[in-house]
């Protein structure tokens, strides 16, 4: 087994190679505005580090968000294109699930919250019973509006660290890691569990407004 995991749903551009036993190589860069530029060189770098070529892959793992869409799409279209050319499966995973799994590796047992930055003073978030068990679907909210629901438990992710007044027990990990996402995928594959399709979790509608009635140009 050789999995390439990529996630571009958060400010992190993160890539990892996993052979089913362990992580062979990984690349983590945080730059919210350069996902498009950074992703392919990162893939090239982890493959070179492991001394492997892309055609050795047996599967692709991709974070499907939620996350800012422009960056998120870079990872998804890259994963889908690789999978099509190589004729291998692409396994979608909720980005927050990757962070929860990393939190587990960092020693958090649960229950806890994962929150990432949704910009516009909102967070993408979900609650977890334990590092492998999410409670319900991810959502996007203003931190103040969910204060009661996330009170009393630890929280991980940049969204938690950004709003300490709501997430009073915010901790590391701050950023998504493709290595954690790959490890989670390996577990799920072994357990025969389902994956998500490689399409974005769009939790917001496009900001498009149907124009108001035609505006008169003649001075009144």
């Amino acid at each position, binding site marked *: 087994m050789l999995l390439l995991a990529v996630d571009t749903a958060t400010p992190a551009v993160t890539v990892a190679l996993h052979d089913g036993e362990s992580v062979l190589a990984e690349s983590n860069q945080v730059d919210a505005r350069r996902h498009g*530029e*950074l992703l392919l060189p990162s893939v090239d770098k982890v493959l070179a580090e492991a001394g492997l070529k892309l055609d050795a892959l047996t599967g692709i793992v991709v974070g499907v968000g939620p996350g800012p869409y422009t960056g998120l799409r870079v990872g998804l279209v890259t994963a889908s294109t690789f999978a099509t050319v190589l004729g291998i499966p692409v396994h979608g995973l909720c980005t927050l699930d990757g962070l929860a799994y990393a939190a587990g590796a960092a020693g958090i047992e649960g229950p806890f919250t994962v929150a990432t930055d949704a910009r516009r003073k909102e967070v993408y978030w979900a609650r977890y019973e334990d590092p492998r068990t999410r409670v319900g679907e991810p959502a996007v909210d203003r931190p103040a509006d969910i204060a009661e629901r996330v009170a009393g438990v630890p929280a991980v992710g940049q969204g938690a660290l950004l709003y300490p007044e709501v997430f009073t027990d915010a901790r590391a990990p701050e950023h998504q890691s493709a290595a954690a996402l790959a490890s989670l995928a390996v577990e799920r594959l072994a357990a025969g569990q389902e994956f998500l399709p490689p*399409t974005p979790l769009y939790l917001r509608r*496009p900001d498009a407004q149907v124009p108001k009635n035609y505006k008169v*140009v003649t001075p009144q």
Partner: protein
Amino acid sequence: MADEPLVLGIETSCDETGVGVVRGTTLLADAIASSVDEHARFGGVVPEVASRAHLEAMVPTIERALKEAGVSARDLDGIAVTAGPGLAGALLVGVSAAKAYAYALGKPLYGVNHLASHICVDQLEHGPLPEPTMALLVSGGHSSLLLAPDITSDVRPLGATIDDAAGEAFDKIARVLQLGFPGGPVIDRLAREGDPKAINFPRGLTGPRDAAYDFSFSGLKTAVARWIEAKRNAGEEVPVRDVAASFQEAVVDVLTRKAIRACKDEGVDHLMIGGGVAANSRLRSLAQERCDDAGIILRVPRPKLCTDNGAMVAALGAEMVKRNRPASDWDLSADSSLPVTDPHVPGTGEAHGHAHSHAHGHDHDHVHELSKDNLY
């Protein structure tokens, strides 16, 4: 013919997901998925709606183009993609797909300029471009006069619109007349039944002291809207066909007049017209008339190659391969305001890139984004 470069081209700068395959100057496939219907009720292209549609359509459209061309991806000599100008988020989907595709196949990647592609597409219709070629590019996103001594390395802007693009003016007038979006085809159709001389609308920037090759359609748009409002306020019926014909005549009169003048001034005997507005029947006929009078050879591709498509990107990519232009790097960016003077984005040859400079001047002649950031 078989030794000419086989190139796949990807275009996602606006609302069409286009993938084309060409061999040299021969068109093999031109697959398109359009999101135009999803934008219609918004009266214009909504960047986030376009980006979502590109992501869904990208891989299937690539597959469809290859199948249509009857070639194997392994036989390609390169992958070309529109690097800009265009909508940032939309471009990024195509650029990311092109990189992944090129990388997975072990093929060179060519990030190319959308405007140069609009010119180069005519090679698929009328054979190799004469050097130099004068090009008039008119669409909803651009209105430019360009002189191209070498489409792969030397494209010179002579003039551009200082406000609205020509296609934008068609959309806005269609809206005033409540004809829906996009406005170009419906105005063209109604104008055929109207009198182009019924109303004398202003010809922007045609005075003796005005910039010879620049365009302005904003004043015309306002003049037409005022004329219509005056009729409505007087309780009279608006002669829609005459308004459409007279408005259209004002646009194509200025476009062709300036293009012919540029040809004469520069001593160029070939004029190429491209972009979505080149599908306009009156623009085509008036340009033909005036070129014939001036002894200029007119080259206008068929309408499907004038609007945004992947074949035009593949056509320019094939020319890049043929002329041994350097490929782009894996850190190629989508540049929403890529200058027209950069026909492609050559790599530095270093494996891990350079900081991309955005210091170049931003002119008005690129797709206008409704919102700068997709801050979701």
